[in-house]
């Protein structure tokens, strides 16, 4: 078997020749039907195969060429195999930027693998998963997330077409199992951040699609996200980002009965209070308060648990009091004041004007003691804006809303 060296005259001519049908048809599916096209690839060395493969995939992307059958998926991923799996003739070291660019291109390509018929689409995704799944840890982080999102979208499609398919619910369940496994493969490759986010996305999707058993699936996905948070996210900045995302996700969901919602929101509150840095704890706990207000469990109505909301904010104040940096402390107080105002306006009865007044006077007391610098200016402005907002409410009261008369500004 002759292998043509990249850059040699024959190699160059062959590449030029093989690009002609790609450029002429602008449809790689047609190109692959050419009888003798694929075998010619075997003459190319690694570098040439790379260049030709990238050329093919880019042509597909530029022309939005959909790949609607499993056979065609197999054919294309077969011919561009150099981009999908490790090769026996690949060099020891590759340029990491080039590699990343190629894999991102493959990630994009996955969105072209689609069929109108959802059953067909599922087969395609399955086929793609097999191909890309054997790409190794370095590749799957680029190629499996698009597959997961494509699968989530497919689940919505099944729901839309439920009239035509009495088995749509079981199929949705299967899709989520497929996603669970696919995300699992990313975890095995020692990733944590992206799997956590994919699990949260899946939980939301399951909650929205409401197929049979969706609550169990959504709970499982939320638990998996939590496990990743507890076991794999150790950087404090990443922890704050992750727990905020988990809280934000849970706040949106309405598929959990009380039995499932209670442990989830409790875990959130606990995790927030255990963040390492005090300011993060304070902010985490304040964000968590929303779970107890607009979070939905059971009856699909907002919880409006004013006591727990108040507890969260009180805890926030306590934590803020423990901050040694005066500037940070005042900043946190102003943020907490804004949270208190938020709930006061919504009619939370545990939050009274007295509480607002107390916090306002505390801030007025401590602000002047701060060193005059840019940061203090910002905190000042923040506080002023908050007071102005309250003044606005006081001056033009909503007849149905709470009274601002007793507010001391």
């Amino acid at each position, binding site marked *: 078997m002759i292998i043509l060296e990249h850059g040699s005259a024959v190699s160059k001519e062959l590449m030029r020749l093989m690009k002609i049908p790609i450029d002429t048809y602008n449809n790689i599916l047609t190109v692959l039907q050419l009888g003798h096209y694929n075998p010619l690839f075997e003459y190319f060395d690694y570098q040439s195969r790379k260049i030709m493969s990238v050329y093919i995939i880019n042509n597909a*992307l530029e022309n939005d060429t959909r790949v609607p059958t499993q056979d065609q998926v197999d054919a294309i991923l077969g011919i561009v195999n150099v981009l999908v799996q490790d090769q026996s003739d690949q060099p020891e070291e590759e340029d990491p930027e080039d590699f990343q*660019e190629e894999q*991102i*291109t493959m*990630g*994009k*390509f*996955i*969105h*072209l693998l689609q069929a109108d018929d959802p059953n067909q689409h599922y087969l395609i995704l399955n086929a793609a998963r097999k191909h890309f799944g054997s790409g190794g840890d370095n590749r799957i982080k*680029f190629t499996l*997330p*698009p597959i997961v*999102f494509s699968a*989530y*979208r497919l689940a*919505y499609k099944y729901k*839309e077409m439920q009239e035509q398919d009495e088995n749509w619910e079981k199929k949705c369940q299967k899709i989520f199992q497929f996603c669970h496994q696919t995300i699992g493969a990313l975890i095995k490759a020692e990733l944590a951040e*992206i799997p956590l*986010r994919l699990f949260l*996305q899946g939980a*939301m*999707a399951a909650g*929205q699609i409401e197929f049979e058993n969706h609550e169990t699936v959504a709970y499982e996905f939320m638990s998996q996200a939590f496990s990743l948070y507890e076991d794999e996210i150790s950087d404090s900045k*990443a922890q704050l*980002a992750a727990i*905020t*995302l988990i*809280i*934000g996700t849970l*706040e*949106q969901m309405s598929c959990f009965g009380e039995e499932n919602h209670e442990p989830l929101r409790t875990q959130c509150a606990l995790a927030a209070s255990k963040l390492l840095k005090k300011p993060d704890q304070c902010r985490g706990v304040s*964000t968590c308060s*929303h779970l107890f207000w*607009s979070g939905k469990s059971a009856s699909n109505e907002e919880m409006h648990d004013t006591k727990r909301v108040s507890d969260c904010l009180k805890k926030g104040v306590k934590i803020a009091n423990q901050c040694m940096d005066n500037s940070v402390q005042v900043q946190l107080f*102003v*943020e907490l004041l*804004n*949270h208190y105002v*938020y709930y006061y*306006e*919504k009619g939370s009865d545990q939050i009274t004007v007295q509480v607002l007044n107390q916090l306002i006077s505390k801030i007025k007391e401590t602000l002047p003691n701060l060193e005059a610098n840019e940061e203090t200016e*910002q905190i000042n*402005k*923040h506080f002023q*804006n*908050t007071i102005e*907002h309250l003044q*606005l409410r006081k001056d033009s009261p909503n007849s149905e809303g709470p009274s601002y008369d007793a507010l001391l500004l």
Partner: protein
Amino acid sequence: MVLVLGDLHIPHRCHNLPKQFKKLLVPGKIQHILCTGNLCTKESFDYLKTLASDVHVVRGDFDENLNYPEQKVVTVGQFRIGLCHGHQVVPWGDTESLAMVQRQLDVDILISGHTHRFEAFEHEYKFYINPGSASGAYCAQDSAVTPSFVILDIQQSTVVAYVYKLIDDEVKVERIEYKKT
């Protein structure tokens, strides 16, 4: 002219911006770009840099670059403009929660994203904009996302926002005005 866009989610959820949008976004016409985040890769950032040299990006929950700031304030003409992805603001897309950010950043205009739903409204004399998703990327809450982005024309104390939406393969434009008080 300020281009406001975000939530592209390339390559996780989309492979490209719509062709019709790419045709409109040409270099030389835009001075500043404010991106709400979730590009998600450097490739998209580099593309934005070809449209304008002054590009500001804030961190979205799927951005691979963890060094983008959580929030940013940019001054254009008479306007202080705040930029934040919005997944950090709970509840997502909630006006009063966004108002808390507006007060903290002390801005006239607050730009946020994450919901993949275009919004532009005035609230307590301040202007709030969500450019939606420029690529029409999947969003768990919304099974039908309309691709959209916004161009701001800032003249003295008036901002005119042009929102571009791709509806049934055609680009539709709406105009909203905001005056600073």
